């Protein structure tokens, strides 16, 4: 029951956070200088369009209209795309999920594996080499890495496609096994760019967490009892070190979504990040606000999921949360 109350409170708080984010973004983007008109558009035509889109109204009126429309499930009409925002999001969000999902898998599988491997060989040559390598990779800025990968593996070596999400001739739609492979092939460079830096960070965090747990009494006890080393690492060290891993999992969502903006733009990946970036530049207010709505929902949901997972991984946290809830309820 108390766990349910805790979850309910977190859900209410999550909705409030999302609402606050879209309000903040709505006000900020409307206050920012600039108009949703291109540089060479005749200002008289621009004025006409501004009126057609209702942008000549006070910001409070526009905000109220936005909320009313949002309550009816209408995200508005994109100025620059000339189509409902919902349609644009339905087409682009799956691409971002594919990219972020692939990057997340890359990040955590590789990062977790490297972290465990290093912790098991602490201060030995593989640990030192990998430690420096992960630090090097972690230091690479994505805006540099992306064009370099594109240049080397796309243009020079020709191993991977130079941008795009699919072959426009053979696979305009993913409707066959060949086209699934084609999509994965197109995904390699952007997902690597987005995932490899995160994996390096995850490896370093995981190594530190594993080493911290290694000095705990129960690990020493297990080792003294003659439990096999593999079992100690996997059952005792890893499970307890997972707490920081799960926390980092929750924090990875904002990183992935912000990283996707750049990666999608450079790799011409037709996702929500590129959509949002173009929308900011063109002052396409409905798209910016809707993107913020989606992004904040994903981030908040990711953190909620991480908190729930933490409860499963460490029952003590569930007890604390329930006790906190009781105190507040009382």
């Amino acid at each position, binding site marked *: 029951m108390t766990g349910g109350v805790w979850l309910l409170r977190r859900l209410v708080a999550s909705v409030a956070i999302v609402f606050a984010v879209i309000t903040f973004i709505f006000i900020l983007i409307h206050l920012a200088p600039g108009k949703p008109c291109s540089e060479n558009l005749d*200002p008289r035509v621009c004025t006409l369009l501004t009126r057609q889109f209702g942008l000549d109204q006070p910001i409070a009126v526009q905000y109220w209209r936005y909320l009313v429309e949002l309550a009816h499930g209408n995200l508005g009409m994109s100025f620059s795309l000339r189509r409902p925002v919902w349609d644009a999001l339905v087409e682009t969000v799956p691409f971002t999920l594919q990219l972020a999902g692939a990057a997340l898998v890359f990040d955590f599988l590789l990062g977790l594996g490297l972290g465990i491997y290093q912790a098991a060989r602490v201060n030995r040559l593989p640990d030192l080499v990998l430690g420096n390598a992960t630090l090097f990779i972690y230091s690479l800025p994505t805006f540099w890495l992306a064009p370099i990968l594109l240049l080397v593996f796309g243009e020079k070596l020709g191993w991977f496609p130079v941008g*795009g999400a*699919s072959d426009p001739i053979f696979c305009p739609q993913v409707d066959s096994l*060949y086209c699934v492979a084609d999509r994965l092939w197109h995904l390699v460079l952007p997902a690597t760019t987005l995932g490899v830096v995160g994996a390096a960070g995850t490896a370093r965090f995981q190594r530190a967490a594993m080493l911290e747990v290694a000095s705990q009494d129960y690990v020493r006890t297990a080792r003294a009892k003659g439990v096999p080393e593999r079992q100690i690492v996997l059952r005792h060290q890893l499970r307890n070190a997972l707490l920081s891993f799960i926390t980092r999992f929750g924090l990875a969502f904002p990183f992935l979504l912000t990283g996707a903006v750049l990666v999608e733009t*450079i790799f*011409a990946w037709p996702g929500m990040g590129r*959509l949002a970036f173009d929308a900011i*530049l063109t*002052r396409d207010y409905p798209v910016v606000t809707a993107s913020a709505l989606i992004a904040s929902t994903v981030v908040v949901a990711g953190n909620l999921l991480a908190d729930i997972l933490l409860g499963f991984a460490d029952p003590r946290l569930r007890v604390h949360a329930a006790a906190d809830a009781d105190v507040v309820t009382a």
Partner: protein
Amino acid sequence: MLRRSAFSYYIVLTVATLGACERRGGCTTAGCGTLIDAAVVEPPTLLPPSTEDIVASDIAEQLFLKLADVGMSTNTVGDEDFQPLLAQRWEWDGPLTLVFHIDPRARWQDGQRVTAADVEFTFNAYNDSAVASPFRPKLQRIEKVTQRDSLTAVFRFREKYPEMFYDAVYHMRILPAHLLRSVPREQWRTAPFGRQPVGDGPYRFVRWQAAQSIELVADTTFFLGRPGIRRLIWRFTPSLPVAVQQVIADQADIREQLVTPDNVERAKAAKQLAIYPFRGNVYTFLSFNQRAPGDTSKPHPLFGDRDVRRALTMAVDRASLVKSTLGDLGQVPPGPISALVGIWAPDIRQLPYDTAQAARLLSLHGWRDHDGDGIRDKDGQPLAFHILVPSSSGLRKQYARLLQEQFRAIGVRAEIDELEGSVVAQRTGSGNYDTAILSRSNDPSPGSGITQSWTLAGFGGSNFGRYYNPEFERIVQRAISAPKRDQARTLWRYALETINADAPGIFLYALANVGAVHKRVENVQFRPDSWAALLRTWRIPPDRLIDRDRVER
């Protein structure tokens, strides 16, 4: 090498195995072929009156016909150089009436006949303020369009002038009235038709994948002859370097504008690419705002003075700037025109590069360095201003810095404001700036571009700097109305020399276009005003077809 081969082998093997049953091929005859254009911008709509977007225009060339079109000469005076398209022929019925006879073979791709009613409907739509068409101002001298019978459309003009025919045919693409009549005009900008158009051109619309590509397929029943290439794909890439990489890596076939000398060199080095230079349609200039920023009722404290503008113009070595930044890809424009416009002539008189004279002129007007800080001043005010430049344009940002240095050399301080394009548009559109580096694209006629950007007709519109000289206006009007081409040319020359002497801006560079196309394509012709206008005549010989040309779906 071994590792690379093994890696490639595994990838190819995996993909080939997965797709072995899926890939179908077989088109091997003339008329096969697929061309992929690496486009940088995705158009917002394909409904012609609703957008001036350049990629939308390229695609619309394939979908919607004009009544007639300019030839390779891009001569816009008279009608002798125009090629018939939807109109089989035309004749003049008096000095103000032009009669078009529509080709009876013309059909919309849903099977309906193209009629004079479509022409009348199109004209009315382009002229409807609810559509907010950017082409509307260019049709102001056409009084009305009517239908004499189902295949005869009659244009009635308000006055007689040399470019009547050009105005009648160039700006409008004829639209299917039966499909658009029911769509409220104020909703045209967002009409679903714009994303799934039905045209009458050489290609049919197949699909639009948002942020990815637009695909067209040849209409084999096209009344003017089957297009030479079966499938056209515009693939959207938000960055020019990546678009160029796609062509170099043989993952696309066309990049119509390489833009920078570096890109041209890289494309030249790619064995499969052929390079096609053609006249550019853009010029870039430093606009001097002649009215006070934010208050158009007062003159600008610096640029309201003609001599200050002239001095600053003379302080800039435009030829060296073009050479150092663009090499052979740019020229100093002889006025506010691009190389596309027929009146371009390098010997049109301009203010010289003469820093001594520039300095003398400023000193003569009291702008001297009284306090010894290296910057000229007058009445305690330094000779300083801001240069507004869109942060998205690397070339213009580079020019801003070079101009800053050249102004500094004569004791003028320029500060650079690099801002987003939308902010630049807002500030220039509202007159809230000192100077701005702006680009303008021309259509082949000097009349509409110069009128909109440099005369009173452009106040509140594209004449951001509010330049006004009654003498210039008079000459422009005479040039537009001149009955003979030579006479018009002389008058335009005089007009350009007049505006150059007034220095409402420093005309910095006009880019030459260089396109890259895969060598397997034959009969490639880039018409300077629209590279895609003649795409239907390009072809790929059967013996040069590659995998992507043969695919059938």
